[in-house]
């Protein structure tokens, strides 16, 4: 038995058990949580430098495993990221107790986690790319959940992943065969793969559909924790190919794509007609900022990207929990209904849920006095001087994000009765306590951003 094999065996085994026990929610959560906690501890039982701690036994902690000659190695670069993601997933599993998700949520997340872990452990990125595709296929199931009806978001998520893999594989083949004369092709292929996998312009359209169609905590997995693993995978590829990552044309293309994502998101945000779409476009603002950060290149990019994604996870958890609390109040169906028009008086009916949603949304937009501001600030101060056009667009997009949310807030504060027959579903004490705790945590991190920035620096340092 080797460490990589165990890291794949634990989540797949746990996913099987949880799937069989999926109707017993508490037990499923406990098993899922124990699985990811074990994975985090197992990954953590190594000293920096690759020397395993002997408590589990030297024979078990062989850090290398081969699959048909393809090595999978647990190395230092990914150790901290994996631990953070495992713990983050564990936290989400716990949150499903007061805020229930679909019963497929835990097993599907565990399988995605296994595939993504394998993708990061793979030493050749072409092999890792296909494992990424497997993770994306299961992610489509996670997005769909147990909801009958429209499958558009899931099908599009799967389509984009299938589209990205040839870009990565052909780029990998060109790099492996040292076809230096194809540098411009390699740059184009890697750029294509990155914008597809990071869902940046021109592939940004499905983000809002995913947020609308999936359960509230699913975006925190898809565009938060799993996006962090995908980004680390892409950073590994770029750092291994400095000819690409140092290429000014490549970096400019990334910044342009990021800026275009911000412009598209800003325009959509001002015309959003449902809460789900509003959240989707706020998320797009964050994605655009991340792609611009990647386009800075070098060490600066690593720090800024990691900070933005870690803060995005927090924003998505806050907004997702809030969204879950208010969603049933504003829509009788998940699509086709002008939900913003049903929000009047919501602030008086669901103040806690709304506060969480607004605060999480502001954090995603990068507004001051929210945790997300630290990421935008890090990006702006690390950018070149004088600030380029992309930075101006970034600042404007923050303002648009705040305006979009204030427009929504103004509707919710209006006391006019809509004649809606939606009954106010009572919140449990547990959900109130947890939601209050999350809001407090968000405010705390907004005032002490160094707590989360030092964590993101720790993730970026091994690169």
């Amino acid at each position: 038995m080797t460490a990589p094999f165990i890291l794949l065996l634990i989540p797949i085994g746990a996913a099987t058990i949880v799937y069989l026990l999926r109707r017993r929610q508490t037990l499923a959560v406990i098993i899922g949580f124990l699985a990811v906690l074990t994975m985090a501890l197992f990954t953590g039982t190594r000293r920096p430098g690759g020397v395993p701690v002997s408590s589990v036994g030297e024979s078990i902690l062989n850090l290398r495993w081969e699959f048909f000659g393809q090595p999978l190695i647990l190395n230092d670069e990914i150790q901290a990221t994996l631990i953070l993601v495992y713990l983050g997933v564990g936290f989400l599993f716990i949150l499903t107790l007061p805020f229930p998700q679909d019963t497929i949520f835990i097993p599907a997340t565990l399988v995605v986690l296994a595939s993504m872990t394998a993708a990061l452990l793979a030493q050749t990125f072409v092999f890792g790319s296909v494992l990424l595709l497997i993770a994306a296929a299961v992610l489509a199931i996670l997005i769909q959940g147990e909801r009958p009806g429209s499958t558009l978001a899931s099908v599009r998520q799967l389509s984009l992943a299938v589209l990205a893999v040839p870009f990565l594989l052909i780029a990998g083949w060109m790099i492996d065969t040292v076809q230096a004369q194809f540098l411009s092709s390699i740059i184009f292929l890697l750029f294509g793969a990155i914008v597809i996998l990071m869902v940046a312009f021109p592939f940004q359209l499905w983000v809002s559909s995913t947020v609308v169609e999936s359960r509230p905590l699913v975006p925190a997995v898809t565009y938060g924790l799993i996006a962090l693993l995908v980004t680390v995978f892409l950073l590994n590829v770029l750092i291994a190919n400095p000819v690409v990552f140092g290429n000014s044309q490549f970096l400019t293309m990334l910044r342009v794509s990021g800026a275009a994502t911000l412009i598209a998101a800003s325009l959509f945000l001002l015309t959003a007609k449902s809460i789900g779409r509003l959240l989707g476009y706020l998320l797009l603002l964050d994605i655009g900022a991340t792609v611009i950060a990647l386009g800075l290149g070098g060490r600066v990019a690593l720090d800024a990207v990691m900070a933005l994604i870690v803060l995005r996870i927090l924003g998505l958890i806050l907004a997702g929990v809030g969204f879950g609390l208010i969603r049933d109040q504003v829509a009788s169906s998940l699509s086709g209904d002008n939900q913003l028009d049903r929000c009047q008086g919501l602030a008086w009916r669901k103040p806690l849920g709304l506060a969480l949603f607004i605060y999480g949304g502001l954090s995603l937009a990068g507004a001051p006095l929210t945790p997300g501001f630290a990421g935008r600030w890090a990006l702006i101060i690390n950018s070149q001087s004088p600030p380029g056009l992309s930075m101006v667009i970034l600042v404007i997009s923050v303002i648009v994000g705040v305006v979009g949310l204030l427009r929504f807030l103004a509707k919710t504060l209006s006391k006019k009765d809509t004649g809606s027959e939606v009954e106010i579903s009572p919140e449990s004490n547990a959900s109130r306590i947890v939601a209050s705790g999350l809001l407090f945590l968000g405010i705390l991190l907004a005032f002490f951003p160094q707590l989360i920035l030092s964590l993101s620096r720790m993730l970026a340092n091994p690169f």
Partner: protein
Amino acid sequence: MGGIPTIYEFLAYLDFLRGTPAAILVLLTASLILILPDWRWLLLALILQYLVVGLLFADVLPPHLAFMKVLVGAFICLILYITARQVNFGRLPEDVTEEEVGQLEEERLVQIGPYSLPIELLFRVFLALIVILTIWAVSQSTGFLLTEVPEHVNLAILSLTGMGLVTFSLTGEPLKAGMGLLTFMTGFELFYHAIEHSIAMLVVLSIADLIIALSIAYLMQARHSFLAFLD
């Protein structure tokens, strides 16, 4: 004598199909997947496509590995067929009343002589013809020739990736879009295995194909379940 023929004997029987005929057949099956609305015909076109692509894989891979790709294709078709049966091949449930059917959006028809044809079918036929012409023109151009593969495999790759791309771009319906994705993947794999002879990649790409098929099957269930019909 009289036993199960070996892979090499199979290939010898089907020798008349190898090369350009196989590539043209693949273009035909991929076009059918784009055009046909009936799930049963779609599944038939897909299994035929996997069988013929097996002959093309035999041009770029050792025959036993090409056979493995055919087996994976057969499993994919089996997964999709079982799921399609479970959801009544995408048709309305049998116990739905006339009034309930009347609430659904009617298919728009166009009259051509004595025949009433769905307008979407005509659009797809038209689109398929354009794609076929484009693929044919591109395959004849030296600028788009993939030098790593024989000329007929080049045509098959362009057919599968081109038709697959158009098929999954046109619809959000899980089976049809999924078949487009699988067709696109098959075309890409045909190219990739010609340039990269790694067994690990062959295995992991096959696993990916199977998991994509399972994912499509799951989405088909969600899209065509009875509850989805009520929604």
